[in-house]
């Protein structure tokens, strides 16, 4: 029992350290994206620099054979995927703003 309690204490310390690092990473990332957004909204920069080009997409998804649909949705948007045995169906529902859907042009 004493041996197991020692091991559990070590594992508890390791888990707490991971929680701290995950929290740090998440916070730092949120601040980074908000900074870019704010700079753009305050006209400090011409854009957020956090974008991919259609060319980037075409380099990853072969547009000659694939139709590429881009979905941009506000936070907390829900995507429901139906049981494929019944239908290939997707429902996308937003509560915080309109959803933007467009096709990536072939060239």
């Amino acid at each position, binding site marked *: 029992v004493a041996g197991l309690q020692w091991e559990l204490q070590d594992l508890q310390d390791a888990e707490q350290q991971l929680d701290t690092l995950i929290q740090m990473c998440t916070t730092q990332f949120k601040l980074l994206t908000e900074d870019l957004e704010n700079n753009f909204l305050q006209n400090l920069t011409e854009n957020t620099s956090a974008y991919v080009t259609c060319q980037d997409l075409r380099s990853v998804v072969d547009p000659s054979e694939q139709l590429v649909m881009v979905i941009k949705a506000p936070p907390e948007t829900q995507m429901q995927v139906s049981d494929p*045995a019944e239908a290939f169906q997707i429902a996308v529902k937003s509560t915080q703003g309109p959803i933007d859907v467009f096709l990536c042009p072939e060239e």
Partner: protein
Amino acid sequence: RTRILVSIGESFGTSEKLQKINQMVCNSDRPLKHGAEGSTAPKPLKRL
């Protein structure tokens, strides 16, 4: 019947759930309309 519900719109995240959706759709034994004209499964993404 909804099989999978994903909260999107968050920047980054949900990768695992989307992989689950792709597997579920890909493994479904639903008869495909274009089956006769050869495989029209979505082409996997390239890795640069």
